[in-house]
């Protein structure tokens, strides 16, 4: 960047044609990206490779590799670790299965609610008000969301709103996050509450992009509101729905904070997910090699989504 003071016309008359790497602009381009690339190389790419290496070894307390174990960490993780995956019981249990529940329920319910609210809200005058209410949880941390919902789920019906609600119908109060059979659903709903605003905003913006004339024309032709939604709006929403789904899926695979704060993976191991197992094994049990194998499994689950994203990015560039 010392070249800023160089006077005279730049870029125009270039006389000889050198390979672009020797041209001034080439060096300048590299100078501009160098700080960012250096950060990414040292603090993202190097750790990424190191963690893959680490997953084939055992470590000591100082996080140094003391012994190579080949694929043993992966083998143990997928076949022997009942807390991660237990296929011997029916239905199967473990962190991976919990995460699968999250993938199915969290993704579909957030998407459906977001779409429902977007479709309903355009029909009323207080649209921006209701959208703001649903969107606000997007701004706050998962830690705060966890505290908010811990209060809602309190077993004492004089504290917890949910138990107060069900006890008015004569039901007994339930310890929602203290029971293995309800804890995952309670967690999923709390996080759906936090994420629906995102789906709603994306889908609402897309809905407004659909020409009002098309919809009016269909209405005059006698189409019902359901027909309009099913045959005009929904097909035009397929791309934004894909965007939201990708976002929700990545969110669900990286899921950690809300579980750490709300249940700590409990009761027992009932609410553990992949990212929680990674943290637990690495930083609580001191098994950094084993934890690295869990992290690699996370990455392998995310890669298909990454490929999809890059394809989408490339096709956008072609059309641009």
């Amino acid at each position, binding site marked *: 960047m010392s070249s800023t003071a160089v006077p005279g016309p730049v870029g125009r008359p270039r006389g000889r044609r050198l390979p672009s790497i020797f041209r001034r602009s080439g060096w300048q381009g590299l100078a501009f990206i160098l700080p960012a690339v250096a*950060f990414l190389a040292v603090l993202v790419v190097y750790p990424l490779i190191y963690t893959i290496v680490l997953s084939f070894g055992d470590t000591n307390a100082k*996080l140094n590799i003391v012994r190579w174990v080949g694929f043993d960490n992966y083998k143990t993780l997928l076949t022997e670790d009942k807390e991660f995956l237990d296929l011997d019981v029916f239905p199967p249990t473990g962190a991976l299965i919990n995460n699968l529940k999250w993938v199915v329920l969290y993704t579909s319910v957030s998407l459906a609610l977001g779409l429902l609210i977007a479709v309903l809200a355009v029909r009323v005058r207080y649209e921006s008000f209701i959208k703001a209410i649903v969107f606000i949880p997007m701004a*706050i941390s998962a*830690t705060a969301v966890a505290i908010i919902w811990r209060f809602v789920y309190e077993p004492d019906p004089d504290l917890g709103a949910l138990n107060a609600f069900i006890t008015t119908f004569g039901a007994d109060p339930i310890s929602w996050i203290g029971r293995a059979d309800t804890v995952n659903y309670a967690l999923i709903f709390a996080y759906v509450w936090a994420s629906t605003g995102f789906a709603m905003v994306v889908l609402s913006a897309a809905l407004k992009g659909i020409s009002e004339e098309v919809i009016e024309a269909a209405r005059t032709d006698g189409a019902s509101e359901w027909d309009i939604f099913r045959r005009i709006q929904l097909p035009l929403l397929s791309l934004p729905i894909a965007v939201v789904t990708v976002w929700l899926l990545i969110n669900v695979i990286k899921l950690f904070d809300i579980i750490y704060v709300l249940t700590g993976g409990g009761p027992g191991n009932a609410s553990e997910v992949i990212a929680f197992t990674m943290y637990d094994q690495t930083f609580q049990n001191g098994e950094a090699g084993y934890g690295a194998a869990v992290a690699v499994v996370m990455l392998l689950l995310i890669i298909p989504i990454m490929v999809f994203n890059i394809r989408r990015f490339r096709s956008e560039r072609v059309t641009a």
Partner: protein
Amino acid sequence: MATAEAAVSGPPRASISERIVGFITRTPVHLALLLIGVVWLVPTVGLAVTSFRPRSDIQASSWWSSLLDFHFTVNNYQQVLDRAGMSDAFFNSLIITIPSTLLPLTLAALAAYAFSWISFPFRDTIFLIIVALMIVPIQMALVPLLRLFRDWGIADWYGGIWLAHTAFGLPLGIFLLRNFFITLPRDLIEAARVDGASNLRIFLKVVLPLSVPALASYGIFQFLWVWNDLLMALIFVQNSDLWPMTIKVNQMQSQFGGEWHLLSSGAFLLMIVPLAVFFALQRYFVQGLLAGSVK
């Protein structure tokens, strides 16, 4: 303006009977939205109300029954700020968040300029690799980064978390800013080049002033991302005197358990800054979030 247009070209006024029919057919919509509004408001309002009630009241009666006979107090907030150390945690959060926002913003803007307006070898390949890095989960880097920061002697200080947030914020920043920079008018950049302006000068005097909305969107997104982060702080801030609010609130939870007068006010202190940012800069925030939906 919308009302003026409606007054000129709006539809003819509906008759009373038409309005009644319209209202009745829309009743299910209103009811559904009412239910949604309740489900989305009650949890937060309940905690907010509780945070302003005396401890003895919280134990004696529910927050919804207290609304009729409310005893207001800010004592809980005083306790949390002074005795539970939340005021220190608030400043720690700020000290962690501000450099972790400005540093990636600067580096990402520089790189995004080069990716948009300077041609150099392997430009598109390098850019694609950076976009791909956006999806790498932080879990793939926790242990190696912790080792690095220990070697460099910054694991007991803010340095480690600044660097980690910067590195993991960069791919999204470069992606977003580059997508904005390439939409700037080519003539403007070319004209500046012909006038002899250097790339740095074009970047500072032409591109940055025109890109304030994009810079604001990414800056706000990164600020809230870092402010709300728990996992990276748990690993990289090892000195408990430097803990940000997210860790502090979580620690209060295990320390005080069901002491809801402290937990509720602590959680609200954690939410204040994001809520203020949200209400003040809603437009940029939503834009940044929509654009950043790939992260």
